[in-house]
Each structure stands twice: as structure tokens, then as C-alpha cells.
């Protein structure tokens, strides 16, 4: 049984609360397609509370990464609306007139990617303080102090002056998480951050995410690691063909999925475990 030294399950409610009025995030009727044939988000609805940790699972092309990228503002949607913290965030129906996105809300979302995360021409410190200094106007001293404190919490304080090429994959991803955390986001998005790592480095990154979960950070995670998904999620969302097929508490969804499509997917995926 793997993950024997994964951190403890952070606190979460016994039942996934699928409240209709979630003030934190609301996706309504979101539609996104590439051209005519490739629909990645098909009138998708999703809610999230401020203390939720959503894990999105599903087959490739089901819109999981697209959802994260849209939430981060990396890609646009062609229809539907997204509300964030009770305010309009992204409006897919605004064509030409009206703002398609509220950029002040975008700064409160942080994201960590799968590949090529850190800027190779800057040291770890350089990576961490670039955005706080240039976007939020912190002084170099303030930003450095903050970076030092963050890295200390992640156990990477000694790596402050080191360059990314000298770090292992797991260390790079942990620094990437720290870099996103420097901006104090309200929501963290993780796009398959451990999928490209060697197995022995996956745990250290997942433990950082669990540490964040302890501190009640709202997060949306896309992962193939079902064990970790079950461990960290307050709610698991199964997407296929751009729609939410089923969602629920991890214990319930993994053991007794209601929808046949979910069952079919889980059989394939958990069987490989």
C-alpha cells in the first residue's frame, strides 16, 4: 500500500455539502469549445464553498484542465458565467462590450502547473519575489522576508539562492507552490502537479498540498492519483465530455458511484492502482 508517509487527512465534513447557494465559486452554464467539433465544457454547472477542496477526475479531454485554465483566466469561455466570492468574475456572454473578466479577482487565484514551472534564469528567490515586487509593489526586503518565511514552512529555506536547474522535480514543484502562495491567493489550482514527477518525489509535493489543506486553503485539484484524491478531497467531481457526471464525498464516490459512467471510469482507473 503506497503513501505510507502521506500526512494525515485534513479535517473535512462527513458528507459533501452540495449547497445550491455557494458564495465562493459558481459556474453556470459554462460553454467552451475549440472550433465546432471540440467541446470541452458543455453547459457545465459547478458550485464550490470557501472551505472546499475539489478534486476533479475524469478521462482525458473531459474539460478538467480547461476548467482550471478558465478559472485562472488563461482561456476564455464562449458562454455561461462564473462568479467568484459572490461577485461576477467571468462572463462568457460579453461580446465586445462589457468586461469579460474581472482582473482584480484574477489576482486572487493562484495556479501550479505540470511542466516547466519555474523560470530557469532566476534563482529560487528571484522566482518568488518577481511577482510580489512587480505586481504588488512590495519592496525587495519585504518580499525576500516573506519568501524566506514561506520556504521555511516548506522546509526549503536552504534553497533560497539556488537555481532551478539544481533542484529535483519535487523541490521545483514545491517552490512553484510557494511562488503562487507569495501572492496570498484565496483559491489555489493544481493542474496534475505530480503527474510528471518520479514516484519518490510525489509524496513530498502532496504533503505540501495537505499542509495547505490544514490551513483551510480552498483548492481545485486535477489529478490522476486516486488515492491522493480520496485523501485530500472534500468533494470529488467526475467530469466526462465537458459535463459534470457525478460529484460527492470521496468515500461515497469511490466506493458507491451512482452513475454507470462513473463506475466504468473508476473500474478502469482503480484497477490499475
Amino acid at each position, binding site marked *: 500500500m503506497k503513501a505510507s508517509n502521506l500526512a494525515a487527512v485534513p479535517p473535512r465534513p462527513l458528507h459533501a455539502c452540495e449547497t445550491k447557494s455557494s458564495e465562493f465559486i459558481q459556474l453556470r452554464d459554462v460553454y467552451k469549445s475549440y472550433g465546432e467539433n471540440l467541446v470541452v465544457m458543455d453547459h457545465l454547472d459547478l458550485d464550490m464553498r470557501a472551505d472546499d477542496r475539489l478534486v476533479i477526475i475524469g478521462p482525458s479531454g473531459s474539460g478538467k484542465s480547461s476548467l482550471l*485554465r478558465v478559472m485562472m483566466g*488563461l482561456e476564455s469561455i464562449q458562454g455561461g458565467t462564473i462568479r467568484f466570492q459572490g461577485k461576477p468574475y467571468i462572463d462568457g456572454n460579453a461580446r465586445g462590450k462589457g468586461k469579460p473578466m474581472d482582473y482584480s479577482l*484574477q489576482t486572487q487565484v493562484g495556479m501550479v502547473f505540470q511542466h*516547466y*514551472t519555474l523560470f*530557469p534564469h532566476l534563482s529560487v528567490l528571484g522566482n518568488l519575489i*518577481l511577482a510580489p515586487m512587480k505586481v504588488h509593489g512590495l519592496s525587495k526586503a519585504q518580499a525576500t522576508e516573506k519568501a524566506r518565511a514561506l520556504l521555511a514552512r516548506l522546509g526549503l529555506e536552504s534553497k533560497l539562492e539556488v537555481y532551478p536547474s539544481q533542484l529535483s522535480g519535487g523541490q521545483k514543484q514545491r517552490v512553484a507552490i510557494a*511562488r*503562487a502562495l507569495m501572492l496570498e491567493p484565496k483559491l489555489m489550482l493544481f493542474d496534475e502537479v505530480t503527474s510528471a514527477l518520479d514516484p519518490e518525489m510525489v509524496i513530498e509535493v502532496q504533503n505540501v498540498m495537505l499542509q495547505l489543506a490544514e490551513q483551510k486553503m480552498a483548492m481545485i485539484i486535477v489529478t490522476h492519483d486516486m488515492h491522493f484524491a480520496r485523501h485530500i478531497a472534500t468533494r470529488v467531481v467526475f467530469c466526462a465530455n465537458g459535463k459534470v457526471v457525478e460529484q460527492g464525498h470521496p468515500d461515497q464516490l469511490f466506493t458507491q458511484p451512482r452513475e454507470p459512467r462513473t463506475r466504468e471510469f473508476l473500474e478502469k482507473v482503480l484497477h490499475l492502482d
Partner: protein
Amino acid sequence: MNYQFDFSFLNGNFGLLWDGLKVTLQLALVSNIVGLVLGFGLCLLTLSRWFFLRWPAQLFIEFFRCTPVLLQIVWFFYCVPMLFDVFIDPITMGVLALGLNLTAFNAEAYRAGVQAVPREHLDACVALGLRPWQRTLYVILPQALRSAIPVLMTNGISILQQSALVAIVAVADLMYVGKSIATEAYRPLETYSLIALIYFALSLPIAQFVQWLERRQDAALAR
């Protein structure tokens, strides 16, 4: 081979050779400066959003890449004064021809550097809230320039070699001086071998430096 090498004719010609070398170095250095600076500007034009900026820039690059350097030099020397009714001194003409040629090749080198920056870095910049000009200045350019440097230096060395072509329009560079000494002393083998050695000695250290730089970059920029 019963050829007897005889380098005695060189006595008394060192002054001429040195003058020729100075002209060659001048051509190479100034063309490089022109090529490095203008090449960057041209690259920005080729990457521009607007078609009416991109298209002439691309045409400029294609002209210099798709015609022989010799032709470009000859064209500049004979056609430009006639077309524009100006007289420019030969060395400046040489710099112009070589410099603009280098501009075109360097623009492609810069562009390759920019396009080699992984798209994920752009995503990371958006995720961090950096504005487009900040992305370009702090993330894209530093990486693009670093990866472009080996190619830019290689292009620079190659312009040093191409500068020999200005001998055809009687600019008194090293090649031209060599040719006239060879003809006068009836010693083409010795003269041209020596000239070749000089060009080689000028270029080799730079070429070795480029190799060293590339090795260092491969190690340092492991993404």
C-alpha cells in the same frame, strides 16, 4: 610536390597587411554592432500583431537570406549610388551591406530564441498576475536572449568571413591586400595560406567560446 615555399616577399609588406587587417576588423565589428541592434528591432517587427509591420520585415529578411552575399555587396556598391544619387565611401558601403545582411540573419536568431521560451512560462506569468510588458521584459527576453547568443555569435563570425567578399569591389581589406601582394610577388600559395591563417586565427577563439557557452547553457538551462 616540388614547390619551394618562400615567404621572403613578406618583408616590406607587413604594413600593407596590417592596414588590410584593420579594415577587415573594422568591417566585421561595425557590421556586428549594426546587425545585433537592428536585428533585434527587426525581430520585434516580425513578431508584431500588425500585418503591415510584419510583412515588410519578413520581405527584408527573405531578400537577404535568399540572395548571395556577393550579389548584395555588388548591388549596394553599384546600384545604391545610382538609384539614390548619393556617394558613400567604400568602407561605409561595405558596413551597410554586411550589416544589413547580418540584421536579417540575426532577426531570425532572436525570433527563434523568443519562440523557444516554453508556453508554460507565459501561463505562469498570467497566473502570477504579470502584465504583458512585464512578462516580456522579465521572463521572455532574458531567456530568449540567452538562447539566441550562440547563434548570434556564429552569425557574427560568419560575417567576418563574408567581409572578404568586399575585395571584389576594391575595398582595401585583408583579402584585397592579399590578392594584390600575391599578384605582384607571384606567390599566390604562400600569400593566400597566410591570409587564410589570419582569418582562421581571428575566428577560432570566438567559435571555441561559442561552443563553451553552448555547453554551459545546456547544463544551466535544464528546464
